[in-house]
């Protein structure tokens, strides 16, 4: 294709603009990494631009030892909530979506409405909180696993996917004498692998990053996940920076401690990132077909 001069200029400007966007998107993360590796005074002075200054790993040592290993407890909690929570969510989502994907299911429309309605209207923060309280679930790990355990939108994503699988497969299996559970486990689920992985990753990321309800429902230090601990550190560091004298380096350690904790909490997401990118895009596509 022949390009005019104006078009060439357009391509160059476009690439430069997108490069700036990419830098703006990634820069804060690089900053976090650099700040976590720098010496506390330069961080406190705000002299970090891109690369670490006065390279040291003390902040990571501090993270490891912080408050008798509070970070390990929080990390372990997060892993528990993410792994068990995602498993619970996935199982319940399949349990909801599979029967509802069958047109022959009498009463299915009522249950579909029951599930869909929660997308448009919910009781609100306080009745929801008091409901957990009534069940004596406040400050329990179970409450975190249960909160948002079934996301209606994913149910419909999966239901649509199940419905795209031809009925003839089910009929053939029925003739061979297979039961519904067998058909679901051995025919439908293997065929829906990509949809299932997508939904697993959606649940996983939202559970990893969850903050608000974890902070509302949990009080005990030993049960809080990483994000809640991180929030506490951020607030502490702010408080220290405002009250401490400029020459007390130790207080400023709080600041590098925050950055190191941020790094620690982002790393698992970055390791998963290639998968996340691929399947999140897939998820948007599956969602788009429906919408």
């Amino acid at each position: 294709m022949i390009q005019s001069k104006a078009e060439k200029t357009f391509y160059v400007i476009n690439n430069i603009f997108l490069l700036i966007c990419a830098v703006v998107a990634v820069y804060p993360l690089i900053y976090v990494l650099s700040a976590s590796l720098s010496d506390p005074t330069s961080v406190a002075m705000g002299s970090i631009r891109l690369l670490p200054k006065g390279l040291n790993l003390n902040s990571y040592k501090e993270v490891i030892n912080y408050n008798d290993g509070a970070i390990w407890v929080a990390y372990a909690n997060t892993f528990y909530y993410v792994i068990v929570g995602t498993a619970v969510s996935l199982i319940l989502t399949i349990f909801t979506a599979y029967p509802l994907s069958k047109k022959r299911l009498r009463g299915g429309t009522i249950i579909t409405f029951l599930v869909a309605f929660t997308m448009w209207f919910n009781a609100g923060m306080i009745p929801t909180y008091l409901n957990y309280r009534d069940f004596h679930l406040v400050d329990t790990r179970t409450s975190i696993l249960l909160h948002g355990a079934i996301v209606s939108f994913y149910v419909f994503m999966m239901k649509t996917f199940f419905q795209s699988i031809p009925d003839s497969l089910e009929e053939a299996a029925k003739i061979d004498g297979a039961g519904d559970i067998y058909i679901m486990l051995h025919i439908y689920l293997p065929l829906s692998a990509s949809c299932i992985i997508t939904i697993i990753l959606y649940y996983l990321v939202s559970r990893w990053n969850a903050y608000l309800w974890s902070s509302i429902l949990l009080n005990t230090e030993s049960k809080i996940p990483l994000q809640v601990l991180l929030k506490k550190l951020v607030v502490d560091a702010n408080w220290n920076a405002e009250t401490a004298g400029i020459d007390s380096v130790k207080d400023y350690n709080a600041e590098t401690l925050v950055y190191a904790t941020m790094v620690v909490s982002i790393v698992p997401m970055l390791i998963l990132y290639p998968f996340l990118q691929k399947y999140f895009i897939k998820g948007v596509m599956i969602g788009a077909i429906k919408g």
Partner: protein
Amino acid sequence: MRTESTSVKIPVNSKFKSYFSALYRDVKRDKALYALLILPVLYFVLFHYKPMYGLQMAFQDYSLYKGIDGSKWVGFENFRMFFESPYFLRTLKNTVLISLYQLVFAFPAPIILAVLFNEVIGKRLKKAFQTACYIPHFVSAVIVTGLVTRFCATNGIVNVIASLFGAEKQNYLTMPEYFRGIYTFMTVWQNTGFDSIIYSAALMSVDTSLYEAASIDGANKWKRMVHVTFPSILPTIVTMFIIKLGNFLNVGADNIILLYQPVTYETADTISTYIYRVGLENSQYSLAAAVGLVNGIVGLILVYVSNYVSRRVTESSLW
């Protein structure tokens, strides 16, 4: 009269009967399918619909010890209290303004980005740009707000850049006039890349022969964008816009709770953050539940109306 009413009643009754006998037959046939639904239905009833039953506390002077069944009924007292308080106008104004900022800035950004991605020559380069721009979506609210707090502090990067232009050093997060701008920029940073995916998907399905035909007719780059690219993603844009309108009042409480402070309440306090403070920090459960109910009902109406409009305009709807 009497015979008429009975003659109406009998079919209804038998309709119910036949429905339940058919249901009974079906449950017997599809035992396993119905069994799978037991846990999810239980979950929805106990954790979504039971709290809705609890919403009646909005009409009560709710006390934790007496519970919903024992608390005193006060009618619309809590609603009156909210509507007459200075918080009503403040939170409504902030919610509407922040949502408007979202519609004006955060909504078009991913469309523009997707169109620009589409113009990149070279698959690898395009993929690299996209990979970088999607990353912020996976960063948690705590980290994003923590970073914004750091960057806006007196020795933060924002001040460093501003001082190049001769601005005085100041903590922007403590200044109410900047809060909505900062919040909008933050959400644009976090969501623009990821939200562009849906438009990129729409762009991929555009017939390339249209571009060729247009350039043969002498249309330049700009004209092709306006007359080919834009019309072909217009249905997606309209659908997304309607979804956004339906969620107009749902300004993310968690991000603002992490970002605001008492000095910026006058511009940052939204309906959802107000509910959070009143309910969980001050334990005024009934008042918070009442405000939540108003918010929920208005939200429901918005969703319904926008879906109705969607069905009319784009022939695609959410239900």
